[in-house]
């Protein structure tokens, strides 16, 4: 905390000639009898990206973003304003706009800011942008290009990128919260196009986390992703049309956990359940998945892309059991929805930036391992689909319908994995599909750190994971019928 606090003072407060006392005064000025809660969120972020195409790094981008978001809550009402200036007059102006939500009542309530023991940071606070000299970033991208092209002459295009963010946030709230968090995030991506016999296909791979660029050099991790991208593209050159219709589907471990993110995750966010708009609303204690399923959201895993030491409302993250042995246990909450539902926040209050309102969001969402050998799961299927990699997904939380689209999948015939198939969308109903999970593998894996989740126009980094799963029936949207 002390190191983080020092950085927060240096980046956020000192340039604007602010201190904690001044922030408390701004916050205090917002409080009245009709205001239940108010908070200030100050953010300073530096980010960069480097992109290689056609063998050369032809562009790079650097950005500094800073600002403060001010929120006032009165019952179910929220007033919100923000400023890209951190100077006190700008903060006062934003605070004045936010508190208009509840004009009535003007007696300032008591504000007791307490520095309760902050959680130990889940990641180092060092600047990931500075973790490699710029020349080495360029050299790493060039190595990725050469490596991918050397694997197979069919590789016609290679795009590789490196990106890093270093973010400092300070949160001060009328419930006594005072938190700072220094958040690193890095990402590496390789995308290739392979061409053969008039066909062209793409393959992509990558990863990252709340670490620095050196994670890509350790065990030649980045080179392994280049190999993976080439393998996927070459495989898809051989792909046959995907089948159409309802059939058993075996999902591979790791990133296919996007299933959980879409099928149950969004539907268990507190805001939808407070409003009764989710297919899971009012169903705590009910069986919403097969008994083999235990699903958790865990924001406190060290160094992972979806992790946060504290969420964007200053609540320490934790491990929230969403579904235990198939029974719905609870929802993911931010402070606002927790207060209105009479429960505790779970460390899931997140926002894209100071210019966005926080809401309940996932962190790292995954299913615990089961008992089956993955080989045994595949062998159990006569005719079906084995899906090991996915693009994105989407859910309609009200009807429960969700989709996710394969980027690497195979036919299963008589218990054997056979031909690769072209990309297809899988569609199902969250609770129905979860109830059809009949086998859970012993091979739990988390994704490599590539997830971005969108909700109400706000993007945040997330993680997913699962073991190999068998779902007895899912609709597969291919063209072969």
């Amino acid at each position, binding site marked *: 905390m002390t190191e983080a606090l020092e950085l927060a003072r240096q980046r956020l407060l000192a340039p604007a000639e602010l201190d904690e006392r001044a922030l408390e005064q701004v916050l205090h000025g917002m409080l009245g009898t009709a205001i239940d809660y108010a908070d200030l969120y100050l953010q300073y972020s530096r980010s960069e990206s480097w992109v290689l195409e056609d063998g*050369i*790094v*032809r*562009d*790079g*981008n*650097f950005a*500094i*973003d800073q*600002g403060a978001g001010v929120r006032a809550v009165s019952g*179910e*009402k*929220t*007033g*919100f*304003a*923000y400023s*890209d200036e951190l100077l006190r007059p700008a903060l006062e102006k*934003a605070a004045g706009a*936010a508190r208009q*939500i509840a004009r009535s009542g003007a007696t300032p309530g008591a504000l007791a800011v307490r520095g309760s023991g902050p959680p130990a940071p889940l990641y180092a606070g060092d600047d990931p942008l500075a973790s490699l000299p*710029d*020349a080495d970033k360029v050299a790493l991208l060039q190595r990725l290009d050469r490596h991918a092209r050397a694997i197979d002459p069919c590789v*016609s*295009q290679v795009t590789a990128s490196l990106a890093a963010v270093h973010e400092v946030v300070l949160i001060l709230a009328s419930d006594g919260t005072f938190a700072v968090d220094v958040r690193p995030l890095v990402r590496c991506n390789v995308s290739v*196009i392979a*061409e053969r016999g008039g066909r*062209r*296909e*793409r393959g992509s791979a990558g990863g990252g986390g709340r670490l620095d660029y050196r994670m890509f050099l350790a065990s030649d991790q980045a080179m392994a992703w280049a190999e993976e991208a080439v393998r996927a593209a070459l495989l898809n050159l051989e792909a046959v049309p995907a089948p*159409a*219709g*309802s059939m058993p589907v075996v999902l591979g471990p790791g990133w296919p956990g996007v299933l959980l993110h879409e099928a149950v995750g969004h539907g268990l966010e507190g805001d939808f359940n407070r*409003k009764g*708009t989710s*297919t899971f609303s009012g169903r705590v204690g009910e069986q919403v998945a097969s008994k083999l399923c235990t699903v958790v959201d865990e924001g406190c895993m060290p160094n992972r892309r979806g992790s946060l030491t504290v969420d964007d409302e200053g609540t320490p993250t934790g491990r929230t059991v969403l579904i235990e042995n198939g029974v719905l246990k609870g929802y993911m909450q931010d402070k606002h929805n927790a207060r209105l539902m009479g429960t505790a926040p779970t460390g899931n209050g997140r926002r894209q930036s100071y210019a966005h*309102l926080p809401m309940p969001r996932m962190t790292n969402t995954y299913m615990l391992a089961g008992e089956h050998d993955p080989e045994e799961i595949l062998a159990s299927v006569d005719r079906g689909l084995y899906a090991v990699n996915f*693009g*994105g997904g*989407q859910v*309609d939380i*009200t*009807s*429960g*319908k*969700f*989709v*996710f*689209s394969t980027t690497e999948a195979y036919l299963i015939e008589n218990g054997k994995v056979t031909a690769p198939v*072209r*990309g*297809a*969308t899988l*569609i199902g109903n969250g609770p129905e599909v979860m109830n059809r999970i009949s086998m859970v593998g012993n091979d739990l894996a988390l994704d490599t750190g590539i997830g971005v989740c969108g909700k109400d126009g706000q993007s945040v980094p997330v993680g997913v994971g699962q073991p190999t799963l068998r779902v007895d029936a899912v*609709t*597969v*949207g*291919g*063209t072969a*019928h």
Partner: protein
Amino acid sequence: MTLEQERAALEERVGQILAEARQQGADAAEVGVSRSEGLSVSVRRGEVETVEHTRDQGFGISVYLGRRKGSASTSDSSAEAVRATVAKALNIARFTAEDPAAGLADPECMPKGSLPKLDLYHPWDVDVATATELARSCEAAALGVDRRIGNSEGATLSSGRSWRAYGNSHGFVGSEPATRHSLSVSVIAGENSGMQRDYAFTIDRVPDALEVAEVVGRRAGERAVARLGARPVATARVPVLFGHDVSAGLLGHFVAAISGGNLYRRASFLLDALGRQVFPDRVVIEEHPHLPRALGSAAFDGDGVATRGKRLVEGGVLQSYLLSVYSARRLELTTTGNAGGVHNLRISDDGLDFDAMLARLGRGLLVTELMGQGVNGVTGDYSRGAAGFWVEDGAIAHPVQEVTVAGNLAEMFMNLDAIGNDALRPGNIVCGSLLIDGMTVSGS
């Protein structure tokens, strides 16, 4: 400040940033400055839920050292931030490689004389109380459509104004103020596991041109109720009618496929398609960048290049790609003024209204909503989640959900059987419903 004073201040800022770049040693530079402010009020179940005041500003700069490029941006408006951001961009340009295609557009590509009058600026001095009342009326109308509508995700009124200015070291500087106002509502019909949500919206640059709040609300309510009892259909190969809510998205895939960035990366299913038949021979697709008050209008593109109207498709044959300065140089072609995208795309129609399109569909699926990202831009493979209505004998039989529609975009465009005259306006891509033969609908 008057509009002209704002314009002068913004263009002066562009000039200051360019001067800083020159002083720090850039051979050439281009700068984009943006500024916006707005109000957004949401009402749910008759009560105000959120009041958001938005105010954003920032600039981005690209600098060139010979043919090496670096870029940087910031939301910090201080003089120190300008210096630091320019320095960062230059630092990046010292590490990037010589790229023969890099650099500003040729000076003769910039707009000449005064910019066309686009009439995009119609501010609305709407206060929180008025916005609340409009959102409340809209939601009430939606909830009042049917007693089976028991819940709401709320109604939102948003109004905003923005400025965008661009300048480069050729001496060109241009700026355009614009406004955008919208009202949307989303309600839920049914209960428990039978709940269905749908929405409606109206958007325009001119406040008076927005649809009446109650009309928008009733449309959302009617749409939500119409979905009750939706079920999958059996897997079949049938014609699919992409309704006017989703047809513009389908044309969006065409736009991506003829965009320079995807072409030079060989990541398009329409490589080398110039002069080739890509739609049936009666189809015409045009771009009209200078339509007054339109959502997609622009006098110059992201490279500062003057936009111009053109036919992209005539007689079903592809006449032009959509190119920026960079992608054009990579393809050894000339920029088409489309850095940043397309400006007001319009497709011809076959004179059929929605009912006539349903009649022509006969038996098949009407799609009103698409889900997920199952579109492979490299191969054109298309497979997406869908909801809509099953159609028998040219009439709606029952609502459908939990199905996918699949095909290949290149084949789907060639199998375009009819285009309706029922396009939604306004929009950047305006397109009536599209009837496509021979798609695979996968369901139960």
